[in-house]
Structure formats: structure tokens, C-alpha cells
């Protein structure tokens, strides 16, 4: 059955033209041989035709593209609209989120605001310290504050804090940069005007000191240009003024009358005593903060004890350093004679300054006047020096005397004229005797002919090395001269060769004569 199905499947594929060439051949063979298979084949052919004829293609749709374009544009426009409205949608979503947050946490914005505010306030409240300490104010300044309601913030820049009252009588303060208020009275003048004796003078100083200590924590400053003022300072100013005037009246009533307008009297005034007592008992931690970008009022607790402790530590440290400094009482500086000469000749514009720190010593030497040195005029020598430099490579040397004994080679030293060094040259000279011996030419020194021969050779050698042996033979290493000298040497060598040839001929003759003599013998 399965085999039949496979055959039928192949027939189906055969009519579709999807069989491999081998399968086509076998299927065609089966169709031809089997009636059943032929019948199946015909059936499939007919079914294929029925199927393909059953469907007619659709008529073209002329509006298809138009409708498709429209549908695509709709889809596009939706996404475009979405993009267009996205900012609004974003804002809307943020609003909804905020609304939900505020619904469940109504104080959110307020808390955030407060948080930020406290952060900023915290920044400006850092390292606050009393103005009296920071600006190094003295009793004169405190007295002026009592009298004129002014406190210097920074003496060098003439910035000062001006206290006063507005039209409604409320206390105000402002920071001014130019002091246009001409003070007609200061502490010293006040003391003189009242003709206070020393004890009284000390007493008024003591009063001012007491108020200064009380005012100290009420006006604070820091390096961020923050000024914090406790409103209680107005009361202290009034109390201090009342106290000073009361003391002045008690000290010298007559002079006091000359200072203040008629009718004013503080001595024995219970109100003054009451006011002073009341002011001293008032404790308010509210401060008004003036900062470069804001003004705000906030509670602030200045830790006077901590501050005093810090000041105490600082003072101790300072004392210790001063004590250490005292230990080094003297320094000895030793200069050599040249320095002394400089001083004596007035070469220094000013004195030498020595800065000594805990870990270094710095010496500041003033500008030294350079001595005038008379240098020789090199102009006349310039051309000569240039020539020397140009011809520096051309140098001369002296050959020493050649030793008398004929060695196997010569060693001679070349002395450079500028004596900067020495050079040794080894020149191999051919050992003529050994050459002659090797070639079978033995020279008998006892032989008369040989003597002559040797003399002649010696003369020749003498001639050869005569030039070398001259006392101051100058070798010019420039190309032309060397070439000439080599040519000359070559000629000499040629002469030597000719002489050698002559000797050889003579020796040959001599030998043949001797042989003939032997034969004759």
C-alpha cells in the first residue's frame, strides 16, 4: 500500500514537473507498462486541469493603490499626530503624577522648599564668629557704636554696620561702604572732656568691656560675607549709651551738662537701671541673616563657650609659638671675603634680607651690580681665528730620528703642535734581507762585492728615508701634496726595484763565474 502511495505521489509530482530525471524515467516506464498507473496518471491530469480551470483571475482593482495610500497616510498621520502632541502628553502625564503625589503628600512642595531653604541657610551659617573678634574691634569702636550706632565690618574697606530706626520707630540696620558720618566725639575726647581721672577712665573702659562681651555673640560674620544680627543689639546699644551717660554724669556733672543738651539727666534715674537690668535678662536666639543673595530670619544658637575655648586654644598655640621663637634668639651668618668686598664697595643696592620660618630659611639677595670688565678687542684676530678653524684639519708633525739599527719595523711618534694628544704609527717596512734569503740570494758580508753591494744598498736606503729623517718635514695632507709625495715614493720604489734587478743580474754573473772557476779547478 505504501509502495502504491509512493508511486502515486511520484505520478502527482511527475505531472507537476517536479521529479528528478531518474525518477522521471522510471515513472514514465511504469506508466507505459502498468494499466493501473496509467489510469492514475490520467486521473491526475484531469484533476489538475479541472483545478486550474476552476479559478479565473480577478479583475484588476483600479482604486486599490489609492485606497492603500489613503490607509497608509491615516496610519502615518496618527503617528505624526502622536509626535505632535507628545510634549502636551508629557506635560499632562507629569501633571497627573504631581497631582497624585500632592494628593497623598500635600506638604511635599513646602517641605522641598523648606529643605532647600535650610540647605542654603546652613551654607551661610557656617563658621560664623563674632564681629568684634573678626574685625578686631576695640573700646573706641564699641564707644562709637553706643554713641553713633555704627560698627566697622572691615576697617580697610570702610564697610560698616549702621543701626537706626525707620519712621515707625522700628529698628533697622544697613551695611554701608563709605563712612560719611563725621564723628565729633570719640572715647578719648569724651574722657578729656569729662576730665576723668585714671580710675574713672578705667571704670568707663570696664563698662565698655562688659557691654562688648555681651554684644559679642549678637553680631556675627563669616568669610561668605554673611552678617547675622540679633535684634537684641539695639537694646544693648541703648543700655550701653544710658550706662555711659549715667556714669559720665555721676563722674563730672558740670562737664556733663556741657556735653549734653539741657534737661537731660541719667544719674539716679531708675528707668535707666531698670532698662539695663531688663536688657541683660533678655535672651533671644533669633538672628537676621544678611547674605550676598538673600536676607532671612532664623533661630541660631551661637556657642559662646565653644568659641571661647577655640580662642583659648588659639592663644595658647600663639604663646607656644612665641616661646619657640624666643628660643632662637640669634643667627650667625658667615660670608666669604667676596661678599664682604661687595658690601665694602657698595655693590648692593640694599641689605640682604633673611626670612626664617619654622621649616625654611629664605635669603633675599638684592640685585647685584655687575662689574664692568674690559674685554680685549677680538676684531683684529677674527680673520685669523676663522682661517685657523677652516684649516684645522691641516696639521704638521715632526718625525723623530730613525734608529740606526735596522729593525723589522719602525715605530715613530707624531707630536701634535697643540700638544692635546699623541698618536703612534707602526709602519711595516719590508725586510729586504729576508726576501733575498727566501729567494736564494745569500749575501756574504765578507765578500768584497757583497760589501760594495751592501754599501750601495745602505746608500739607497739612506736616500729613501732621508726625506723622513729631516728635522721638520711637513706633510701636507691636502690631496695634491699627498699625491705628489706618493708619486715621488712610487718613483723611489721603482728605482729600488731597478737596483734590486741590477744586484740580481750581478749576483747571477758572479755565481756563473764561481761555478766556472770550480769546474776549472
Amino acid at each position, binding site marked *: 500500500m505504501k509502495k502504491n502511495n509512493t508511486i502515486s505521489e511520484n505520478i502527482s509530482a511527475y505531472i507537476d514537473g517536479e521529479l528528478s530525471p531518474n525518477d522521471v524515467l522510471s515513472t514514465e516506464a511504469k506508466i507505459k507498462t502498468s494499466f493501473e498507473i496509467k489510469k492514475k496518471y490520467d486521473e491526475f491530469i484531469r484533476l489538475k486541469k479541472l*483545478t486550474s480551470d476552476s479559478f479565473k483571475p480577478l479583475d484588476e482593482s483600479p482604486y486599490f493603490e489609492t485606497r492603500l495610500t489613503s490607509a497608509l497616510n491615516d496610519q502615518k498621520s496618527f503617528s505624526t499626530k502622536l509626535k505632535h502632541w507628545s510634549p502636551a502628553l508629557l506635560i499632562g502625564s507629569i501633571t497627573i503624577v504631581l497631582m497624585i503625589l500632592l494628593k497623598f503628600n500635600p506638604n511635599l512642595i513646602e517641605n522641598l522648599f523648606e529643605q532647600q531653604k535650610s540647605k542654603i541657610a546652613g551654607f551661610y551659617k557656617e563658621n560664623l564668629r563674632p564681629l568684634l573678634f573678626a574685625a578686631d574691634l576695640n573700646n573706641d569702636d564699641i564707644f562709637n557704636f553706643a554713641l553713633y550706632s555704627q560698627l566697622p565690618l572691615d576697617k580697610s574697606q570702610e564697610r560698616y554696620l549702621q543701626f537706626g530706626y525707620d519712621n515707625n520707630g522700628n529698628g533697622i540696620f544697613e551695611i554701608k561702604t563709605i563712612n560719611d558720618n563725621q564723628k565729633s566725639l570719640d572715647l578719648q575726647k569724651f574722657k578729656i572732656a569729662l576730665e576723668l581721672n585714671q580710675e574713672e577712665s578705667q571704670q568707663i573702659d570696664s563698662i565698655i568691656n562688659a557691654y562688648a562681651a555681651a554684644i559679642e555673640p549678637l553680631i556675627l560674620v563669616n568669610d561668605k560675607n554673611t552678617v547675622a544680627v540679633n535684634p537684641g543689639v539695639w537694646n544693648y546699644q541703648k543700655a550701653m549709651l544710658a550706662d555711659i551717660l549715667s556714669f559720665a554724669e555721676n563722674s563730672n556733672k558740670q562737664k556733663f551738662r556741657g556735653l549734653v543738651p539741657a534737661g537731660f539727666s541719667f544719674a539716679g534715674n531708675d528707668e535707666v537701671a531698670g532698662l539695663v537690668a531688663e536688657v541683660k535678662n533678655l535672651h533671644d536666639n533669633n538672628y537676621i541673616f544678611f547674605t550676598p543673595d538673600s536676607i532671612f530670619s532664623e533661630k541660631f544658637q551661637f556657642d559662646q563657650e565653644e568659641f571661647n575655648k577655640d580662642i583659648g586654644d588659639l592663644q595658647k598655640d600663639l604663646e607656644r609659638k612665641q616661646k619657640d621663637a624666643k628660643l632662637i634668639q640669634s643667627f650667625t651668618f658667615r660670608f666669604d671675603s667676596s661678599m664682604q668686598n661687595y658690601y665694602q664697595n657698595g655693590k648692593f643696592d640694599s641689605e640682604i634680607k633673611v626670612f626664617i620660618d619654622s621649616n625654611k630659611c629664605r635669603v633675599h639677595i638684592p640685585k647685584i651690580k655687575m662689574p664692568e670688565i674690559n674685554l680685549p678687542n677680538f676684531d683684529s684676530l677674527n680673520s685669523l681665528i676663522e682661517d685657523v678653524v677652516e684649516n684645522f684639519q691641516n696639521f704638521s708633525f715632526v718625525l723623530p730620528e730613525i734608529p740606526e739599527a735596522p729593525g723589522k719595523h719602525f715605530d715613530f711618534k707624531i707630536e701634535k703642535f697643540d700638544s692635546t694628544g699623541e698618536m703612534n704609527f707602526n709602519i711595516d717596512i719590508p725586510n729586504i734581507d729576508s726576501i733575498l734569503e727566501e729567494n736564494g740570494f745569500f749575501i756574504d758580508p765578507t765578500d768584497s762585492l757583497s760589501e760594495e753591494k751592501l754599501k750601495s744598498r745602505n746608500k739607497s736606503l739612506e736616500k729613501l728615508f732621508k726625506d723622513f729623517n729631516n728635522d721638520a718635514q711637513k706633510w701636507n695632507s691636502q690631496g695634491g701634496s699627498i699625491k705628489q709625495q706618493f708619486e715621488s715614493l712610487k718613483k723611489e720604489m721603482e728605482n729600488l726595484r731597478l737596483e734590486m734587478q741590477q744586484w740580481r743580474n750581478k749576483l747571477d754573473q758572479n755565481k756563473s763565474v764561481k761555478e766556472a772557476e770550480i769546474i776549472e779547478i
Partner: protein
Amino acid sequence: MNSEKENKDLQLPQILNLDDDFSIVKKFIDGDDSAFNIIVKRHKEKVRNIILMMLGSTDGVDDISQEVFINVYKNLKHFRFESQFTTWLYRITINKCKDHLRKIKIRSIFSNFKEDDDFGYNHDHESKDISEIVRKAILKVPSKLRIPLLLKDIEGFSYQEIAESLGCEIGTVKSRIFRARESLRNILKPLEQELMQ
């Protein structure tokens, strides 16, 4: 000389016709929207006829065709050029038709709707037209067997193309087409006399 020419021919890259599907798809990917119109114009009729053949009804042919091309428009930028563009297009078409037929089937469960009611270009059940009889008989063949048969006999796809479009093996296509023919033969057997006339 000849071998030189052969080498030169081998070295030269294959120059594609600028009008072929790949070139047009490339144009569209590069931002030329007008290339899409060319694609639609070129393939719309084939797509419509495949849909007709698969649904057996003209109803919804244009709607589904539109959906097919919208899908193509949205996804053409992701086309990977690994197969013929037509294979990719016909697979989308066949899947859309399958989705549509599935929806109809689900709908028919909850209503008295009968799938074969819509079959035929006209709704005259008494017609003795052979084509109509055959179309009705084809509809009775399970869609799994019917689709490869129609793609082969009507659209003239090769087994390879059918396999790629349906995502199955060539052997499966061969077997399904055979079984579809067997099934169709059995359905049409009682009507053999009418068909012979």
C-alpha cells in the same frame, strides 16, 4: 584571449537590473517612498489572486491585500535580502489569509455561519457550472492540503517556492499536493457523470 575574457567576466560583480525587486526594496529602505508604489503596482494582482484562491471568495480580498501591503510597508526596512522578495511577500499574504480563516472559523463556532456559504464567485448553489462544482469540492479539501495544491495548480509555484512560502520541506509539499488530489478525486467521484458531460 578567451580565458582572459572569462576571467574578466568572473571578476565583474553581478550587475543587477535596477528594476528588480531587490533594487526597488533597497531604494525604499534608502528613503525613497515612491519605490513602494512600484512594489504595490507590480505585486498587487498576484497577492489579490492568492487571497481569492485561499479564501475562495472575493469578499475581503481587497481588505486583506491592503493589510498585507501595510504590513509590508511597516516591515520592509527589516527585510534581510536572504530570500526572494516574492517569497517573503507571499508568506505574509498566506499568513494573513490563515489569520482571516481562523477568525472565520472561530466566528462560525458562535454563529450559524458556514464557511462554504461564501465560496464561489456568485452565490447560486444550484448552478451546474463545472468550475463552481470544482471550487466547492476544493473548499472541502482541508486547508493544509488545499493551499499547496492551489499554489501549484493555479499560481504555478514550484515545490521549492511553496515550501519557502509555507515554511515546510519540499517532501511535505509533494506529499500534501498528492493527498489533496486524492481527496479532491474522492469528493468529485459522485459527480463524475456531471463532470464528464
